């Protein structure tokens, strides 16, 4: 007797949702994700890498193209990233605004910028580069009348790294309020969002991302600042391990060969393409030794050698069977003595930077009463956590570290939920009815942002605002 819900009954009482057509933006070093609140995957996912084409006519000397489709070898081309590799926070604010506008304004709300078909470049066919209007987001000066208040109707929720600085926050709110005219804005920390995505208000969030791995304790929807642990053991570090393995192998393996054309792509482009290849390699070959014990323990490697390996075919057609190597590259995440020698000294990790030690340090920095609860609510998120065997190993390490405690990992089964965990959490958050009281409204910011940027006299006000921005509420369970 499944009676369909009548359209008149808005199911607010079920999950506490109250859509206000909010947008959610989650920027990371490898990817930037944007979408509508209340949905379960971001509508638009772009690499945070962008192409800068030398253009003497532009003020900055180059024009930028965004999106995977536009990053290809062409003359006078550089691949850059607007985020900071070490911090996963915005480094290049000018480009960040461009990237975000191209996502929030053009990709999410394409009807806003419908130009005349005669002018939109689709029918030119002159340079054959496809959709120009998507490409030159920076040259949106002619759309000034639209750009006045491009987001006047949509509240915007952005995520930020837990170690984000106050200055960066002010900048973000300034852009959202003044450039885009958002009626309401909010900045939420990624671990909080990831915990919400897992349906938990209190959790120990282990976020193994592309550039960084962070371990943060979240209590009642707020991060504990003293517990934040960060290390560069992430996807890029793993790639560097694979590279050094390739280099040391005989014969030496080149992920991508230099092209045999006159067009010499820049090294940044090659690095970007290499990274794409290595990502595929990581997805299909690399595995984490599941434990118990370390991979370097005697007997483990012999066991692995007897197991069937995996074949990976390089772009040049060569292929190889990988057996024990695929375990060896990932072992450095857990055991710093097992990491492969790397070219740059920055890539080296210390014992304190391995994943189990991060968790230990994080737990040691929180109140002892919270620790059992945190250990029972460990949320694993981030794309690199999708490595084969990662959760098993993490579980084994934690059981070894805290033998008497109940350790429970919560890792989403769907790859999208793992990759976009913090975006999904933000999406849940921004669509909650109880969240409306948290939004920072435009009027309050227009009063305070100039003051904030001009002088530091209003420190108290800023402080109270910072207090507010950390949020205090408990989310309803996600129900989709």
């Amino acid at each position, binding site marked *: 007797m499944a009676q369909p819900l009548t359209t008149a009954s*808005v199911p607010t009482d079920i999950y506490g949702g109250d859509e*206000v057509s909010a947008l959610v933006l989650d920027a990371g070093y490898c990817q930037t994700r944007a979408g509508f609140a209340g949905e379960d995957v971001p509508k638009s996912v772009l690499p945070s890498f962008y192409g800068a084409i030398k253009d003497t006519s532009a003020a900055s000397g180059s024009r930028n193209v965004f999106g995977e489709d536009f990053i290809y070898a062409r003359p006078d081309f550089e691949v850059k990233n607007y985020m900071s590799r070490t911090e996963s926070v915005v480094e290049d604010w000018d480009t960040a605004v461009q990237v975000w506008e191209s996502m929030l304004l053009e990709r999410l709300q394409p009807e806003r910028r419908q130009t005349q078909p005669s002018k939109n470049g689709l029918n030119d066919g002159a340079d054959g580069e496809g959709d120009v209007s998507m490409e030159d987001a920076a040259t949106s000066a002619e759309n000034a009348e639209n750009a006045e208040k491009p987001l006047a109707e949509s509240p915007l929720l952005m995520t930020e790294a837990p170690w984000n600085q106050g200055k960066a926050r002010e900048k973000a709110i300034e852009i959202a309020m003044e450039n885009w005219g958002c009626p309401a804005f909010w900045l939420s920390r990624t671990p909080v969002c990831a915990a919400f995505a897992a349906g938990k208000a209190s959790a120990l969030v282990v976020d193994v991302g592309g550039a960084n791995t962070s371990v943060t304790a979240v209590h009642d929807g707020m991060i504990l*600042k*003293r517990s934040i642990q960060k290390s560069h053991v992430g996807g890029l570090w793993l790639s560097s391990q694979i590279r050094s393995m390739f280099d040391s192998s005989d014969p030496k393996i080149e992920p991508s060969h230099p092209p045999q054309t006159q067009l010499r792509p820049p090294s940044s482009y090659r690095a970007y393409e290499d990274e794409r290849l290595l990502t595929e390699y990581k997805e299909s070959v690399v595995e984490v030794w599941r434990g118990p014990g370390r991979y370097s323990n005697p007997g483990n490697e012999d066991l692995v050698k007897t197991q069937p390996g995996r074949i990976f075919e390089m772009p040049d057609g060569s292929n190889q069977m990988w057996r024990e190597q695929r375990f060896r590259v990932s072992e450095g995440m857990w055991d710093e003595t097992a990491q492969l020698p790397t070219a740059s000294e920055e890539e080296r990790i210390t014992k304190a930077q391995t994943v189990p030690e991060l968790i230990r340090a994080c737990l040691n920095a929180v109140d002892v009463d919270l620790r*059992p609860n945190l250990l029972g609510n460990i949320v694993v998120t981030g794309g690199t956590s999708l490595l084969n065997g990662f959760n098993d190993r993490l579980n084994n390490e934690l059981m*070894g570290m805290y033998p*008497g405690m109940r350790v429970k990992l919560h890792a989403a089964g769907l790859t999208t939920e793992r990759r976009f965990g913090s975006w999904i959490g933000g999406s849940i958050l921004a669509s*909650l009815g109880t969240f409306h009281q948290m939004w920072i409204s435009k009027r309050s910011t227009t009063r305070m942002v100039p003051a904030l940027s001009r002088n530091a006299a209003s420190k108290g006000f800023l402080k109270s605002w910072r*207090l507010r921005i950390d949020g205090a509420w408990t989310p309803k369970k996600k129900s989709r």
Partner: protein
Amino acid sequence: MTSHDVREMLNLPTEGGGSRPAKKQKTSIARQNLKGLAREVQNLGGDNPIAIVPEISSFKKRRFGSRKPAARWEMRPFRNSARGDESLILRHWRRKTDVQPTPPQPEQQQNGQPNEDKMDADKGESKPEEIEDSSFAKFNVKVDVPQYSEDQYNSTLVNNDWTKDETDYLMDAVREYDLRWPIIWDRYDYQSKDGDASTESNTAVVQARKARTLEDLKARYYEVAAKMMGVQRPVQYMNQAEFSLHEIMVNFKPEDETRRKKFAEAQMGRSKEEAREEESLLLEVRRILARTEKFNQERRELYNRLDYPTTETTQDLSTFKTSNGLHTLLQNLMTADKSKKRKSLMGTDGQSTPASAGPSAQPGSTPLAEQRRESIAASASGHGHGRHDSNASTDTRAEKPTKKGAQAPERRKLTEQEELTYGVSTHDRLPSGPTFRYDRINKILTTKSNAQHARITNTLNELDVPARLTMPTKAVVDQMEHLLVNIQTLLDLKKLSDKFDAEIKLEKAKKAEKDKAAGIVPQPAAAESAAKGGSNGETAKENVAASKDGKKAGGGAASSSTATTEKPAAGEGTNGEKDGPNKGGEQAAAEKPADGNPGADDKKAAAKEAQEATNGVKQENNTGEEKEERPSSSGGQKRSASVLSSVSDKSAKRQKK
């Protein structure tokens, strides 16, 4: 029963028809509703509606036909009154309403009225003044944080460790984070205002920032909160909830918390082995607990089986001090005894475990009851004495209640300690009127003949015991009595042994004479040895003696046999002899018939025995050497024990015989 009923039962059509038209109508109506089925098929179901639902093929058409006009939705602005600023107006999709908007429940109205547009226009006009409030605003709850004014702070809340500024900061943080202490502690970052306002004093700038622990923060907050509670309403006027809250806050001990956390931390940092060990220990504890549980249950079962009266002596005894109380207790015990007997009988019937059923499986459970009664009697008569075993004549006392049987009421058993403290003593028969304890001793002595009296006093003198007691307490009198009885038996035995010695000598002399007459060379040495120690020889001699001068020594033998049978009993039982030697004599006399001495008057026998005893003693005095051989005067108890053992040997031999 009419034919109509039969037909109804068999579900046949009625003859007359029309008797129950209602039923027919009903079925026909139901059948008409079912379309698309052949009539025959429908008839198969009889009165019951058929379970096959005919397929209706007009799905699309019907849906299309029944479609209502599409619901209209609109972006409706709303505000959230929980916000600090009411300026933020967000918009969400809501179903368009046709009636004048009543903000609390706008969705409940139905649309589809022709005047919708007009109403909408009305609403559009009235929109600016009424923007609905978010239904989620009610979820905004805030904690109550104590408020205090400047004066209140100065009067009650001053603390050396905390400035007012920092206290304010703490209160703000508590309000901000809704009392989530881990977060408050995590974000607590108080910078002293003195740093900014350095004009006030230079020393204040130097003041270092203190690292506050979570316990510090909690302690300060609870202190402030408790004091402000006390200020608003004095402690004595608080209601229960307030008072308990106040108590909790006042009793907060940061040191205890710190210690507890240290323990918790140590517990977390255990190694694998420690964890395993603890686990195994916990397992062991659980097992032990389970075992004690089982043990307790078994014990309870046992107690139930015994129907043991409750032993909360401290509370119970006060009610039993009065005679009334004692009476009720007696009644209770009697009823308990009766019910117990019935239960135990039933229990043996229904019992399946042989071990538990074993002891009480005897019919009527007499051994158990008897045993208990005996123990009660023993403790009742034997209070105040450590050694019950060496006392005399309790066996008869113990026998009496058993002879009386079940009608002897069960008494609540007091321990000896209690009997001492409460001065409880039981008597079989009480002499009328008060008596002096001293009289009891005197009675023993005065009832004896002069010679006996003299001998007893002699022995007492030998033992350095004064004949007249200086402090005749109960215990002393009992002991004295006991001593006198023992002396008496000792003297009797002496007399007996003397008599036997005399007889042996006589027989020896006779034998020597006979041998002389027969011309056989006598062997006096062998005879001597046989007479002294050799048990076989002695018994043989005694047999001979007993058989030979049966007439002469008949009474004496009888009396000696009673004495010997009496002795072991005296050894076993407690001293029930306090009633005096007369009584003991009577008892001995009472036993005599059982020994098979018919028609012997006990009084005469006793007198005779006494005479013979005196004679024997006289003889014994004459033959002084022999007396020296035996341990005669080295102390009442020891001697009596040795005598007893020798006598019991003799009695055993006699029984063999």
